Protein backbone atom coordinates (compact mmCIF):
# COMPACT_ATOMS: atom_id res chain seq x y z
CA UNK A 1 0.00 0.00 0.00
CA UNK A 2 1.65 3.24 -1.09
CA UNK A 3 1.84 6.04 1.41
CA UNK A 4 0.77 9.28 -0.21
CA UNK A 5 3.56 11.81 -0.03
CA UNK A 6 2.39 15.20 1.18
CA UNK A 7 3.06 17.87 -1.37
CA UNK A 8 1.92 21.39 -2.14
CA UNK A 9 1.08 21.77 -5.81
CA UNK A 10 0.78 25.54 -6.04
CA UNK A 11 2.94 28.56 -5.23
CA UNK A 12 2.10 31.60 -3.14
CA UNK A 13 -0.33 34.09 -4.74
CA UNK A 14 -1.16 31.72 -7.59
CA UNK A 15 -4.52 32.19 -9.31
CA UNK A 16 -6.75 29.17 -8.65
CA UNK A 17 -10.34 28.27 -9.42
CA UNK A 18 -12.93 26.18 -7.53
CA UNK A 19 -12.08 22.51 -7.68
CA UNK A 20 -8.36 23.01 -8.30
CA UNK A 21 -6.19 20.72 -6.20
CA UNK A 22 -3.78 22.74 -4.08
CA UNK A 23 -2.08 20.01 -2.08
CA UNK A 24 -2.07 16.26 -1.54
CA UNK A 25 -1.39 14.31 1.60
CA UNK A 26 -2.58 14.70 5.15
CA UNK A 27 0.16 17.03 6.35
CA UNK A 28 -1.59 20.14 5.16
CA UNK A 29 -4.69 21.80 6.53
CA UNK A 30 -7.37 23.73 4.66
CA UNK A 31 -7.80 27.35 5.72
CA UNK A 32 -10.53 29.73 4.54
CA UNK A 33 -11.51 29.31 0.92
CA UNK A 34 -10.42 25.66 0.80
CA UNK A 35 -11.84 22.28 1.65
CA UNK A 36 -10.48 18.78 2.09
CA UNK A 37 -11.65 15.93 -0.10
CA UNK A 38 -10.14 12.57 0.86
CA UNK A 39 -6.42 13.31 0.91
CA UNK A 40 -6.52 16.38 -1.31
CA UNK A 41 -6.97 20.01 -0.42
CA UNK A 42 -8.96 21.87 -3.05
CA UNK A 43 -9.94 25.49 -3.61
CA UNK A 44 -13.60 26.41 -3.17
CA UNK A 45 -13.21 29.97 -4.43
CA UNK A 46 -11.68 31.75 -7.37
CA UNK A 47 -8.73 33.72 -6.04
CA UNK A 48 -5.08 33.78 -5.01
CA UNK A 49 -3.47 31.16 -2.80
CA UNK A 50 -2.09 32.00 0.61
CA UNK A 51 0.27 29.52 2.20
CA UNK A 52 1.29 29.84 5.84
CA UNK A 53 3.30 26.91 7.18
CA UNK A 54 0.88 23.99 6.99
CA UNK A 55 -2.22 26.06 6.26
CA UNK A 56 -3.35 26.64 2.71
CA UNK A 57 -6.06 29.20 2.01
CA UNK A 58 -7.53 31.10 -0.91
CA UNK A 59 -8.14 34.85 -0.87
CA UNK A 60 -11.17 35.42 -3.10
CA UNK A 61 -11.04 37.91 -5.96
CA UNK A 62 -14.79 38.47 -5.65
CA UNK A 63 -17.60 37.80 -3.24
CA UNK A 64 -19.91 39.39 -0.71
CA UNK A 65 -18.91 40.67 2.73
CA UNK A 66 -19.49 38.19 5.56
CA UNK A 67 -19.29 40.14 8.86
CA UNK A 68 -16.57 39.20 11.29
CA UNK A 69 -16.07 40.22 14.91
CA UNK A 70 -13.66 43.10 15.26
CA UNK A 71 -14.07 44.44 11.72
CA UNK A 72 -14.49 48.19 11.28
CA UNK A 73 -17.35 48.76 8.85
CA UNK A 74 -19.14 51.66 7.22
CA UNK A 75 -22.91 51.35 7.17
CA UNK A 76 -26.07 53.27 6.24
CA UNK A 77 -28.89 53.57 8.74
CA UNK A 78 -31.83 52.00 6.94
CA UNK A 79 -34.32 51.64 9.78
CA UNK A 80 -34.85 52.34 13.48
CA UNK A 81 -36.81 50.89 16.34
CA UNK A 82 -37.22 52.36 19.82
CA UNK A 83 -33.80 51.41 21.08
CA UNK A 84 -31.89 50.17 18.05
CA UNK A 85 -30.71 51.26 14.63
CA UNK A 86 -30.66 48.80 11.75
CA UNK A 87 -27.84 49.30 9.28
CA UNK A 88 -27.06 48.19 5.76
CA UNK A 89 -23.42 47.11 5.81
CA UNK A 90 -23.11 45.96 2.20
CA UNK A 91 -23.65 42.36 3.22
CA UNK A 92 -26.44 39.77 2.87
CA UNK A 93 -26.84 40.32 6.62
CA UNK A 94 -28.06 43.58 8.20
CA UNK A 95 -26.48 44.86 11.35
CA UNK A 96 -27.94 46.17 14.57
CA UNK A 97 -26.59 49.05 16.62
CA UNK A 98 -28.17 49.05 20.09
CA UNK A 99 -28.70 52.37 21.86
CA UNK A 100 -26.40 51.34 24.67
CA UNK A 101 -23.52 50.79 22.28
CA UNK A 102 -23.91 54.15 20.59
CA UNK A 103 -24.69 56.65 23.28
CA UNK A 104 -22.82 56.83 26.57
CA UNK A 105 -25.26 58.93 28.56
CA UNK A 106 -28.73 58.04 29.86
CA UNK A 107 -31.47 58.66 27.30
CA UNK A 108 -35.02 59.33 28.45
CA UNK A 109 -37.02 57.56 25.76
CA UNK A 110 -40.27 59.26 26.74
CA UNK A 111 -38.78 62.62 25.84
CA UNK A 112 -36.32 61.78 23.03
CA UNK A 113 -36.58 59.95 19.76
CA UNK A 114 -33.28 58.25 18.97
CA UNK A 115 -33.22 59.82 15.52
CA UNK A 116 -31.60 62.85 17.13
CA UNK A 117 -28.42 60.81 17.31
CA UNK A 118 -28.51 58.93 14.01
CA UNK A 119 -31.29 59.21 11.48
CA UNK A 120 -32.25 57.08 8.47
CA UNK A 121 -29.75 57.71 5.71
CA UNK A 122 -26.86 58.64 8.00
CA UNK A 123 -23.47 57.09 7.33
CA UNK A 124 -21.62 55.59 10.28
CA UNK A 125 -18.23 54.00 10.87
CA UNK A 126 -18.67 51.35 13.58
CA UNK A 127 -17.03 48.20 14.85
CA UNK A 128 -18.54 44.73 14.69
CA UNK A 129 -19.04 43.74 18.30
CA UNK A 130 -20.40 40.29 17.73
CA UNK A 131 -21.71 37.94 15.03
CA UNK A 132 -23.97 35.24 16.38
CA UNK A 133 -24.18 31.74 14.95
CA UNK A 134 -27.41 32.69 13.20
CA UNK A 135 -25.58 35.63 11.59
CA UNK A 136 -27.14 38.36 13.73
CA UNK A 137 -24.62 41.19 13.58
CA UNK A 138 -24.19 43.62 16.48
CA UNK A 139 -22.25 46.85 16.08
CA UNK A 140 -20.75 49.24 18.59
CA UNK A 141 -19.55 52.83 18.50
CA UNK A 142 -17.27 52.09 21.42
CA UNK A 143 -14.12 52.48 19.39
CA UNK A 144 -11.86 55.47 18.92
CA UNK A 145 -12.44 55.54 15.18
CA UNK A 146 -16.24 55.28 15.29
CA UNK A 147 -18.27 58.29 14.27
CA UNK A 148 -20.91 59.63 11.92
CA UNK A 149 -19.44 60.46 8.51
CA UNK A 150 -20.67 63.71 7.04
CA UNK A 151 -20.28 64.93 3.50
CA UNK A 152 -17.66 63.46 1.20
CA UNK A 153 -18.43 60.53 -1.08
CA UNK A 154 -18.73 56.76 -0.99
CA UNK A 155 -17.13 54.04 -3.10
CA UNK A 156 -17.86 50.34 -3.11
CA UNK A 157 -15.02 47.88 -3.66
CA UNK A 158 -14.75 44.11 -3.37
CA UNK A 159 -14.41 43.36 0.38
CA UNK A 160 -11.59 40.88 -0.08
CA UNK A 161 -9.47 43.60 -1.75
CA UNK A 162 -9.50 45.90 1.29
CA UNK A 163 -6.09 44.64 2.54
CA UNK A 164 -4.62 45.49 -0.87
CA UNK A 165 -6.10 48.95 -0.71
CA UNK A 166 -4.69 49.54 2.75
CA UNK A 167 -1.32 48.10 1.81
CA UNK A 168 1.45 46.81 4.00
CA UNK A 169 1.28 48.82 7.28
CA UNK A 170 -1.09 51.26 5.59
CA UNK A 171 1.43 52.27 2.93
CA UNK A 172 -0.94 52.25 -0.05
CA UNK A 173 -3.77 54.17 1.60
CA UNK A 174 -1.35 56.71 3.10
CA UNK A 175 0.11 57.29 -0.35
CA UNK A 176 -3.34 58.11 -1.71
CA UNK A 177 -4.25 60.27 1.30
CA UNK A 178 -1.10 62.35 1.00
CA UNK A 179 -1.18 62.85 -2.73
CA UNK A 180 -4.85 63.82 -2.83
CA UNK A 181 -5.15 65.61 0.52
CA UNK A 182 -8.22 63.56 1.38
CA UNK A 183 -9.51 61.97 4.53
CA UNK A 184 -10.12 58.34 3.64
CA UNK A 185 -11.80 55.72 5.80
CA UNK A 186 -11.86 52.13 4.56
CA UNK A 187 -14.44 49.71 5.96
CA UNK A 188 -13.65 46.01 5.97
CA UNK A 189 -17.02 45.58 4.29
CA UNK A 190 -15.75 47.16 1.09
CA UNK A 191 -17.21 50.63 1.63
CA UNK A 192 -14.73 53.50 1.35
CA UNK A 193 -15.54 57.05 2.47
CA UNK A 194 -13.46 59.97 1.32
CA UNK A 195 -13.55 63.69 1.69
CA UNK A 196 -11.02 66.30 0.69
CA UNK A 197 -9.37 68.21 -2.10
CA UNK A 198 -8.93 65.73 -4.92
CA UNK A 199 -11.78 63.31 -4.33
CA UNK A 200 -12.00 62.41 -8.02
CA UNK A 201 -8.34 61.46 -8.26
CA UNK A 202 -8.50 59.44 -5.05
CA UNK A 203 -11.61 57.63 -6.36
CA UNK A 204 -9.82 56.78 -9.58
CA UNK A 205 -6.86 55.35 -7.68
CA UNK A 206 -9.08 53.30 -5.38
CA UNK A 207 -11.18 51.88 -8.23
CA UNK A 208 -8.00 50.99 -10.13
CA UNK A 209 -6.76 49.02 -7.14
CA UNK A 210 -10.12 47.23 -6.97
CA UNK A 211 -9.96 46.28 -10.66
CA UNK A 212 -6.28 45.29 -10.77
CA UNK A 213 -5.42 44.03 -7.29
CA UNK A 214 -4.22 40.70 -8.69
CA UNK A 215 -1.78 42.27 -11.15
CA UNK A 216 1.86 42.78 -10.16
CA UNK A 217 3.44 46.22 -10.19
CA UNK A 218 0.29 47.88 -8.87
CA UNK A 219 1.99 50.16 -6.33
CA UNK A 220 4.09 51.80 -9.04
CA UNK A 221 1.11 52.20 -11.32
CA UNK A 222 -0.91 53.91 -8.58
CA UNK A 223 2.03 56.19 -7.75
CA UNK A 224 2.23 57.25 -11.38
CA UNK A 225 -1.51 57.77 -11.59
CA UNK A 226 -1.48 60.03 -8.53
CA UNK A 227 1.51 62.00 -9.75
CA UNK A 228 -0.15 62.70 -13.08
CA UNK A 229 -2.81 64.41 -11.03
CA UNK A 230 -6.11 65.83 -12.19
Amino acid at each position, binding site marked *: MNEVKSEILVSERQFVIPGETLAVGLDFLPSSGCFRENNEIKA*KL*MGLTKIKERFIGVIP*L*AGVYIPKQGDGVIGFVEDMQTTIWILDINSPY*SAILPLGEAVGEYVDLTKTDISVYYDVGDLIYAKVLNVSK*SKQVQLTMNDYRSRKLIGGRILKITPSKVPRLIGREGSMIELIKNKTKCQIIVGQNGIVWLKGEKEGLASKAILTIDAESH*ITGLTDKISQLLDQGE
Partner: protein
Amino acid sequence: MSKIGKPEKMVIDGKRLDGRGLEEFRPLTVEVGVLKRAGGSAIFKFGDTYALAGVFGPKTMHPRHLQDPQKAVLRCKYSMAPFSTKERIRPGPSRRAIEISKVLNKALSNVIFFEDYPKTGIDVFVVILQANASTRCAGLNAASLALAEAGVSMRNLISACTVGKLDGEIVLDVGGDEDQFGDVDLAFASIGNEDKIVLLQMDGIVRKEEFLKMINLAKKGCAEIYEKQISALKEKYKTGEEDVGSE
Protein backbone atom coordinates in the same frame (compact mmCIF):
# COMPACT_ATOMS: atom_id res chain seq x y z
CA MET B 1 -44.39 13.85 -36.10
CA SER B 2 -43.78 15.08 -39.62
CA LYS B 3 -40.25 15.38 -40.82
CA ILE B 4 -40.90 17.83 -43.61
CA GLY B 5 -37.67 19.26 -44.83
CA LYS B 6 -35.56 16.41 -43.44
CA PRO B 7 -32.42 15.96 -45.51
CA GLU B 8 -32.08 12.51 -46.98
CA LYS B 9 -28.82 11.89 -45.21
CA MET B 10 -27.60 13.62 -42.03
CA VAL B 11 -24.11 12.12 -42.22
CA ILE B 12 -22.16 11.69 -45.43
CA ASP B 13 -18.69 10.13 -45.37
CA GLY B 14 -18.18 10.90 -41.69
CA LYS B 15 -19.14 14.57 -42.17
CA ARG B 16 -22.30 16.19 -40.89
CA LEU B 17 -24.51 18.77 -42.61
CA ASP B 18 -22.39 21.67 -41.40
CA GLY B 19 -19.14 19.97 -42.32
CA ARG B 20 -18.25 18.85 -38.79
CA GLY B 21 -16.74 15.51 -37.92
CA LEU B 22 -18.75 13.14 -35.73
CA GLU B 23 -16.91 14.10 -32.55
CA GLU B 24 -16.40 17.76 -33.26
CA PHE B 25 -17.89 20.72 -31.39
CA ARG B 26 -19.29 23.76 -33.07
CA PRO B 27 -17.02 26.80 -32.52
CA LEU B 28 -16.94 27.40 -28.77
CA THR B 29 -16.79 30.92 -27.33
CA VAL B 30 -16.51 31.60 -23.60
CA GLU B 31 -16.22 34.95 -21.86
CA VAL B 32 -16.42 35.82 -18.18
CA GLY B 33 -17.44 39.09 -16.53
CA VAL B 34 -19.69 40.47 -19.26
CA LEU B 35 -22.36 42.10 -17.05
CA LYS B 36 -21.12 44.97 -14.92
CA ARG B 37 -24.11 45.03 -12.58
CA ALA B 38 -24.18 41.33 -11.75
CA GLY B 39 -22.13 39.75 -8.99
CA GLY B 40 -20.81 37.34 -11.59
CA SER B 41 -21.59 36.68 -15.24
CA ALA B 42 -20.53 34.73 -18.29
CA ILE B 43 -21.52 34.08 -21.86
CA PHE B 44 -21.14 30.65 -23.45
CA LYS B 45 -21.67 29.88 -27.13
CA PHE B 46 -22.00 26.54 -28.94
CA GLY B 47 -21.80 27.89 -32.51
CA ASP B 48 -25.01 29.89 -32.94
CA THR B 49 -26.45 29.07 -29.53
CA TYR B 50 -25.72 31.97 -27.16
CA ALA B 51 -26.38 31.65 -23.43
CA LEU B 52 -25.89 34.54 -21.01
CA ALA B 53 -25.81 33.90 -17.28
CA GLY B 54 -25.91 36.42 -14.43
CA VAL B 55 -25.53 35.68 -10.73
CA PHE B 56 -26.82 37.93 -7.96
CA GLY B 57 -26.02 37.24 -4.34
CA PRO B 58 -25.62 35.74 -1.87
CA LYS B 59 -28.05 38.38 -0.63
CA THR B 60 -30.87 38.75 1.87
CA MET B 61 -33.54 36.26 0.98
CA HIS B 62 -37.03 37.59 0.33
CA PRO B 63 -39.70 36.35 1.00
CA ARG B 64 -38.62 35.73 4.56
CA HIS B 65 -40.56 32.53 5.05
CA LEU B 66 -38.55 30.79 2.33
CA GLN B 67 -35.27 31.53 4.11
CA ASP B 68 -33.30 28.56 5.37
CA PRO B 69 -31.63 29.41 8.70
CA GLN B 70 -28.73 27.09 7.98
CA LYS B 71 -27.99 27.50 4.34
CA ALA B 72 -28.42 29.56 1.21
CA VAL B 73 -31.34 28.98 -1.15
CA LEU B 74 -30.63 28.79 -4.87
CA ARG B 75 -33.11 30.19 -7.37
CA CYS B 76 -32.54 29.55 -11.06
CA LYS B 77 -34.47 31.13 -13.87
CA TYR B 78 -33.97 29.97 -17.44
CA SER B 79 -35.65 32.00 -20.16
CA MET B 80 -35.40 32.45 -23.90
CA ALA B 81 -35.34 35.96 -25.32
CA PRO B 82 -38.29 36.65 -27.66
CA PHE B 83 -35.81 37.16 -30.51
CA SER B 84 -33.79 33.99 -29.83
CA THR B 85 -35.64 31.88 -32.39
CA LYS B 86 -37.05 32.34 -35.91
CA GLU B 87 -40.59 32.71 -34.64
CA ARG B 88 -41.01 35.21 -31.79
CA ILE B 89 -41.33 33.54 -28.40
CA ARG B 90 -44.06 34.99 -26.25
CA PRO B 91 -42.49 36.47 -23.08
CA GLY B 92 -43.25 34.75 -19.79
CA PRO B 93 -42.25 31.34 -18.47
CA SER B 94 -43.29 28.38 -20.60
CA ARG B 95 -43.60 24.88 -19.13
CA ARG B 96 -40.36 23.96 -20.85
CA ALA B 97 -38.57 26.96 -19.31
CA ILE B 98 -39.88 26.07 -15.85
CA GLU B 99 -38.63 22.51 -16.26
CA ILE B 100 -35.21 23.60 -17.45
CA SER B 101 -34.97 26.10 -14.57
CA LYS B 102 -35.61 23.26 -12.16
CA VAL B 103 -33.12 20.97 -13.85
CA LEU B 104 -30.40 23.64 -13.83
CA ASN B 105 -31.10 24.28 -10.15
CA LYS B 106 -30.66 20.60 -9.32
CA ALA B 107 -27.43 20.41 -11.30
CA LEU B 108 -25.87 23.50 -9.72
CA SER B 109 -26.98 22.44 -6.23
CA ASN B 110 -24.47 19.62 -6.40
CA VAL B 111 -21.49 21.93 -6.31
CA ILE B 112 -22.37 25.01 -4.23
CA PHE B 113 -21.39 25.13 -0.55
CA PHE B 114 -24.76 26.35 0.70
CA GLU B 115 -23.81 26.13 4.37
CA ASP B 116 -21.32 28.95 3.92
CA TYR B 117 -24.16 31.47 3.46
CA PRO B 118 -27.03 30.78 5.88
CA LYS B 119 -30.32 32.70 5.45
CA THR B 120 -29.33 34.09 2.08
CA GLY B 121 -30.60 33.66 -1.45
CA ILE B 122 -28.50 33.19 -4.57
CA ASP B 123 -30.20 34.11 -7.86
CA VAL B 124 -28.97 32.69 -11.16
CA PHE B 125 -30.50 33.98 -14.38
CA VAL B 126 -29.83 32.24 -17.68
CA VAL B 127 -31.07 34.00 -20.79
CA ILE B 128 -30.79 32.39 -24.19
CA LEU B 129 -30.04 35.19 -26.62
CA GLN B 130 -29.92 32.98 -29.68
CA ALA B 131 -31.11 29.37 -29.81
CA ASN B 132 -29.79 26.61 -32.06
CA ALA B 133 -30.12 23.53 -29.84
CA SER B 134 -28.12 22.62 -26.70
CA THR B 135 -29.45 25.68 -24.90
CA ARG B 136 -29.68 24.13 -21.46
CA CYS B 137 -26.10 22.93 -21.71
CA ALA B 138 -24.81 26.29 -22.86
CA GLY B 139 -26.80 27.87 -20.02
CA LEU B 140 -25.33 25.51 -17.44
CA ASN B 141 -21.78 26.14 -18.65
CA ALA B 142 -22.33 29.88 -18.42
CA ALA B 143 -24.09 29.67 -15.03
CA SER B 144 -21.31 27.69 -13.40
CA LEU B 145 -18.70 30.17 -14.61
CA ALA B 146 -20.84 33.08 -13.42
CA LEU B 147 -21.08 31.54 -9.95
CA ALA B 148 -17.30 31.14 -9.77
CA GLU B 149 -16.80 34.72 -10.93
CA ALA B 150 -19.26 35.94 -8.30
CA GLY B 151 -17.10 34.45 -5.56
CA VAL B 152 -19.66 31.85 -4.47
CA SER B 153 -17.86 28.91 -2.87
CA MET B 154 -18.14 25.78 -5.01
CA ARG B 155 -16.49 22.40 -5.10
CA ASN B 156 -15.88 22.61 -8.86
CA LEU B 157 -17.26 23.94 -12.13
CA ILE B 158 -19.96 22.11 -14.07
CA SER B 159 -19.43 21.27 -17.74
CA ALA B 160 -22.25 20.28 -20.09
CA CYS B 161 -22.72 19.22 -23.68
CA THR B 162 -25.10 17.26 -25.89
CA VAL B 163 -24.65 14.06 -27.85
CA GLY B 164 -27.00 12.60 -30.45
CA LYS B 165 -27.61 9.85 -32.94
CA LEU B 166 -27.88 10.66 -36.63
CA ASP B 167 -28.24 8.00 -39.32
CA GLY B 168 -27.09 5.43 -36.80
CA GLU B 169 -23.92 7.38 -35.93
CA ILE B 170 -23.21 8.76 -32.45
CA VAL B 171 -22.30 12.45 -32.67
CA LEU B 172 -21.12 15.18 -30.31
CA ASP B 173 -22.81 18.58 -29.88
CA VAL B 174 -26.19 18.42 -31.54
CA GLY B 175 -26.91 21.46 -33.69
CA GLY B 176 -30.28 22.93 -34.67
CA ASP B 177 -31.24 20.81 -37.66
CA GLU B 178 -29.74 17.72 -36.06
CA ASP B 179 -31.94 18.23 -33.02
CA GLN B 180 -35.03 18.57 -35.17
CA PHE B 181 -34.40 15.73 -37.63
CA GLY B 182 -32.05 13.43 -35.70
CA ASP B 183 -33.03 10.23 -33.91
CA VAL B 184 -31.75 10.94 -30.43
CA ASP B 185 -30.76 14.03 -28.46
CA LEU B 186 -29.10 13.64 -25.06
CA ALA B 187 -28.13 16.47 -22.69
CA PHE B 188 -25.32 15.64 -20.28
CA ALA B 189 -23.51 17.54 -17.54
CA SER B 190 -20.78 16.47 -15.16
CA ILE B 191 -18.82 17.99 -12.31
CA GLY B 192 -15.60 19.45 -13.73
CA ASN B 193 -12.90 16.85 -13.89
CA GLU B 194 -14.70 14.41 -11.59
CA ASP B 195 -16.60 11.43 -12.90
CA LYS B 196 -19.98 12.56 -11.56
CA ILE B 197 -23.08 13.20 -13.66
CA VAL B 198 -25.40 16.03 -12.57
CA LEU B 199 -27.72 16.32 -15.56
CA LEU B 200 -28.94 13.58 -17.87
CA GLN B 201 -31.94 13.97 -20.16
CA MET B 202 -32.71 12.19 -23.38
CA ASP B 203 -35.16 12.38 -26.23
CA GLY B 204 -35.44 9.24 -28.40
CA ILE B 205 -34.79 5.50 -28.19
CA VAL B 206 -31.39 3.79 -28.10
CA ARG B 207 -30.01 0.35 -27.36
CA LYS B 208 -27.91 -0.08 -24.24
CA GLU B 209 -24.56 -0.33 -26.09
CA GLU B 210 -25.35 2.84 -28.03
CA PHE B 211 -26.31 4.60 -24.81
CA LEU B 212 -23.01 3.70 -23.15
CA LYS B 213 -21.13 4.93 -26.22
CA MET B 214 -23.02 8.20 -26.03
CA ILE B 215 -22.19 8.64 -22.35
CA ASN B 216 -18.51 8.07 -23.03
CA LEU B 217 -18.52 10.57 -25.85
CA ALA B 218 -20.33 13.09 -23.66
CA LYS B 219 -17.70 12.66 -20.94
CA LYS B 220 -14.96 13.35 -23.46
CA GLY B 221 -16.85 16.41 -24.69
CA CYS B 222 -17.31 17.75 -21.17
CA ALA B 223 -13.59 17.40 -20.49
CA GLU B 224 -12.95 19.67 -23.46
CA ILE B 225 -15.58 22.16 -22.25
CA TYR B 226 -14.00 22.15 -18.78
CA GLU B 227 -10.62 23.17 -20.23
CA LYS B 228 -12.28 26.04 -22.10
CA GLN B 229 -14.04 27.22 -18.95
CA ILE B 230 -10.81 27.20 -16.97
CA SER B 231 -8.93 29.19 -19.61
CA ALA B 232 -11.74 31.75 -19.74
CA LEU B 233 -11.41 32.37 -15.99
CA LYS B 234 -7.63 32.44 -16.09
CA GLU B 235 -7.69 34.78 -19.07
CA LYS B 236 -9.79 37.30 -17.16
CA TYR B 237 -7.51 37.30 -14.15
CA LYS B 238 -4.03 37.27 -15.62
CA THR B 239 -1.69 38.46 -12.90
CA GLY B 240 0.92 39.70 -15.30
CA GLU B 241 3.39 37.25 -13.82
CA GLU B 242 2.73 34.52 -16.36
CA ASP B 243 5.06 35.98 -18.95
CA VAL B 244 7.87 36.35 -16.45
CA GLY B 245 9.92 33.22 -15.84
CA SER B 246 9.76 29.96 -17.68
CA GLU B 247 6.88 27.50 -17.86
